[in-house]
């Protein structure tokens, strides 16, 4: 309860900041699936991005992807392709687009959109199974997306 209130406050604070600070999910511009500029206007932190990818409570990317460089993340899934060498296949802008909303790159993909707040059918309050009590934050915020992108950029062949 307390944490939800806190989250609400954080969002309200974010919303009150000048628009330049973080591109809101609704304002993101996709160019053939890619997002050219950083959502925060700043480069991400790869080490933090690795945490986001491994954590069930955050990105949980390893639920669907193998990342060989991350042996400490247990039980890596294989619903999606291995991310090894991703930076060799995609540009930074393309990776940003895939993480923010992979459906803009892969039509109909099962990969969730991590930076989006509307267009859902029966969205819930995280994993409670209950209806949300207020507007939904994106699954990852702009800083987390940039951190994940920075980590993905380290996955060279």
């Amino acid at each position, binding site marked *: 309860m307390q944490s939800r209130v806190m989250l609400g406050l954080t969002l309200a604070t974010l919303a009150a900041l000048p628009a330049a600070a973080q591109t809101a999910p609704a304002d993101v511009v996709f160019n053939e699936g890619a997002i050219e500029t950083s959502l925060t206007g700043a480069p991400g932190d790869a080490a933090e991005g690795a945490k986001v990818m491994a954590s069930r409570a955050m990105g949980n990317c390893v639920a669907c992807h193998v990342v060989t460089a991350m042996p400490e993340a247990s*039980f890596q899934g294989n619903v999606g392709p291995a991310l090894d060498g991703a930076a060799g296949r995609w540009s930074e802008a393309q990776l940003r687009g895939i993480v923010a909303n992979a459906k803009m790159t892969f039509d109909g993909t099962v990969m969730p959109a991590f930076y989006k707040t509307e267009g859902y059918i029966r*969205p819930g309050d995280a994993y409670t*199974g209950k209806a949300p009590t207020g507007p939904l934050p994106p699954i990852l915020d702009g800083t987390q997306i940039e951190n994940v992108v920075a980590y993905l950029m380290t996955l060279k062949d």
Partner: protein
Amino acid sequence: MRLRLGRTLITAAAMVVTASSVAHSDAVEGVDLVINEDITLVTRAAPPASLDGALPEILSGWLFREGETRAMEMDDFSNPAMVFVDQGMDMWNKVDGTEGKSCASCHEDISSLKASRASMPKMNEKGDDLWSMENFINNCRTTRMGAEEWKWSGDDMKNMTAAISMAGRGELVHPKIDGAAADWWQKGKDLYYTRFGQLELSCASCHEKNYGHMIRADHLSQGQLSGFPVYRLKDAGLVSIQQRFKGCVRDTRAETFKEGSPEFRALELYVASRGDGLSVEGVGVRP
């Protein structure tokens, strides 16, 4: 697309071992579910026509479990669910309610309900509603026994559905999907393919497109109902069909439907129909 193609290729050339991720995690090959070294159950079957080519073969959830878990289901002495089946049998014979009746007063031996599990859910006697086994049980309790309803996934209810499923072990799943049930089936099908929640995943995203793959620690099956209610080792207890649905919908970061809701009953009919031709297993064992 890529994933489905991979699987088709492997089926076509079953002997070729590929390095693809599909090969090492698909359903286990070359094993039969023989219970108590006596009863052979159907765990692989040709897809029913109603699936319209959506799956190349239908596969019991048993085929996706580890050897140890599979073995537990193969012997009723090692199947932890049998304690609950026994408790369900006690309730079968127990008089409850104002009419002084037990289930056995009307149905006599539980084998009289042998065909029940394989046909569920189905239209009620009046023909105006689709009922799961839980609805039929509660209807008997309230209108025939003068007893209280049981909670959908309460212990008494799960024990009783387990006992009735055991009585139907080996029957082939074959719910009726035409006539008055046709609209329910269609509604269930629509729900099955709806991408719910903030993760925007449908039942099909996991159980049709990606069965055989790992999603974190879980080996995805086709989400068949033939083993239900199942015993879940993690919970040390039985799990009802709609309790499982609820968990799966919740895991898409969605608002779930309620157990017993029209949505979940429709979905149950549709999912049951996807397993048409598999054996009722009695009570399956899951990790």
